[in-house]
């Protein structure tokens, strides 16, 4: 089943896919090129019947960032993970909102927390943090403090 799936993906997407790794519990982890994102999404939905986008998330690997998408197919009854490596400087990827409307809020959250910009997103603004919040908390460079430490710091300043 997984081999069959990876063959299908290679046939449809060719060099837009950088590689397919096996991932227990899913059909695999498809690593795709970020500049071909929209093609990959459309082909995943229309050709490979992954009609359900469950989750969009981002990981900050310090030297680069990763955007990952978890898809579910009702026909195959299986998950697949899409993942794209983005540069650490100005990471951006095409929004999946036009393919799966459910991406809307997930992408807003990922932009807010991991600072990955989604191009052509209809409504990219703060979701969880108040408007105007200047930080992206889920970056590795953002450190948490005990409240006492914070107080001491503010007093010194």
């Amino acid at each position: 089943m997984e081999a069959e799936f990876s063959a299908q993906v290679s046939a449809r997407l060719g060099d837009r896919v950088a590689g397919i790794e096996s991932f227990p519990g899913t059909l695999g982890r498809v690593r795709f090129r970020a500049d071909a994102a929209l093609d990959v999404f459309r082909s995943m939905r229309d050709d490979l019947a992954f009609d359900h986008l469950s989750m969009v998330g981002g990981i900050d690997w310090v030297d680069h960032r990763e955007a990952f998408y978890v898809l579910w197919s009702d026909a195959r009854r299986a998950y697949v993970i899409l993942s794209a490596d983005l540069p650490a400087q100005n990471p951006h990827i095409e929004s999946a909102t036009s393919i799966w409307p459910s991406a809307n809020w997930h992408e807003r959250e990922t932009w807010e927390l991991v600072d990955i910009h989604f191009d052509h997103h209809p409504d990219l603004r703060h979701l969880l943090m108040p408007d105007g919040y200047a930080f992206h908390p889920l970056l590795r460079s953002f450190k948490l403090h005990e409240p006492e430490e914070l107080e001491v710091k503010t007093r010194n300043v």
Partner: protein
Amino acid sequence: MSEMWINMGPQHPMTHGLWNLRVHIDGEMVLDVDPEMGYLHRGIEKISEDRHYNEVVTLMDRCCYVAGLAWEHLYILSAEQALAIRPPERAEWIRMMSEEFQRLGSHIMWYAAFVQDIGLMSPFLYGMRDRDLILDLFQSYTGARMTYEYMRVGGVRNDLPNGFTDRARKVCDWLIDRFVEYDRLCLGSDIFHKRCDGLGTMSEKDCVAYGVTGPMLRSAGSRRDLRKDRPYSAYDRVEFDVATADGADVTARYLVRMEEMRQSVRIIRQALDWLDRHPGPVMAARVPRWLGAPYAPIGNEGYLLKRNYPKGLGLSAIEEPHGEAQAYTVNDGGEHPYRVKFRSPVFANISAAKKYLVGYRVADIPPIMGSVDVCVGECDR
């Protein structure tokens, strides 16, 4: 009255939590809605990065406070996959039973809150009364009513106490009788049907497009249930039916949840029978000591020295009471998870609010949002 925007929330009886629904109304008609989330964003994903694998469980209880054990289960499944540890079979059955009890507890809590939204007063009290019985059971084996910290990487913290299964069976019998009473109070009333039939409809196609899962999706006729489609724990070893309904409206969601509760009782009864017959360990033998499992057998010194654990990724997905929840755990070989990302079903269900709220009346918002079953804790995380 001309058109205006009203804020329903963050302090509003409809919200059942801390979120804000901005509603654009013309008289009583809803023209547009804009949910505002994040009032309960506690940075659980960030705090998890500073914690040991087992310490994240503490946060999971508080993440979804009406379904703590289900979320513990979700996280533990993904952490076990990332760390490549398998729990013993008895632990899997206990986890499954806990999750089903939690589903009962969560659905009863939903019932209590939902009937209050349509103005029924007494069933709220009945719901809270019956939910307390389930919490008592939890208390007897986890030690807490709501925040359990019971599951561990590699199993569960402790075995069930003596006589637990009998007590649990009694609670199941009691609840099955109460469901009849619940139905009589709601479905037996014409006003209930007048208030709920044909309200907040969302077709299966829309549900899939907007990522809506759980009872909302099944009320639209879909048979999607991760417990059947992608069995985890011991769900492939028990018999149960997927609760579905047609109509995709508030009444259909009510029917789906009530049927799910009955199915949960069915699963629990099978699990209790199995647990009675199969004693055994509830913790995997080879669990690294630094994971902090208090009941891990000593004898895994090899693991103790090897601080760097094999790198791995874990994706788990469970059918949580509100819908389909996922956890994506990234293990980079350290003591803390490198990144934990959760997918909350409520998050997706609320994000589609425009689809099922626009075109109805202000008075319809509470029953519709009640039927969505909002738990803000897991939505904002």
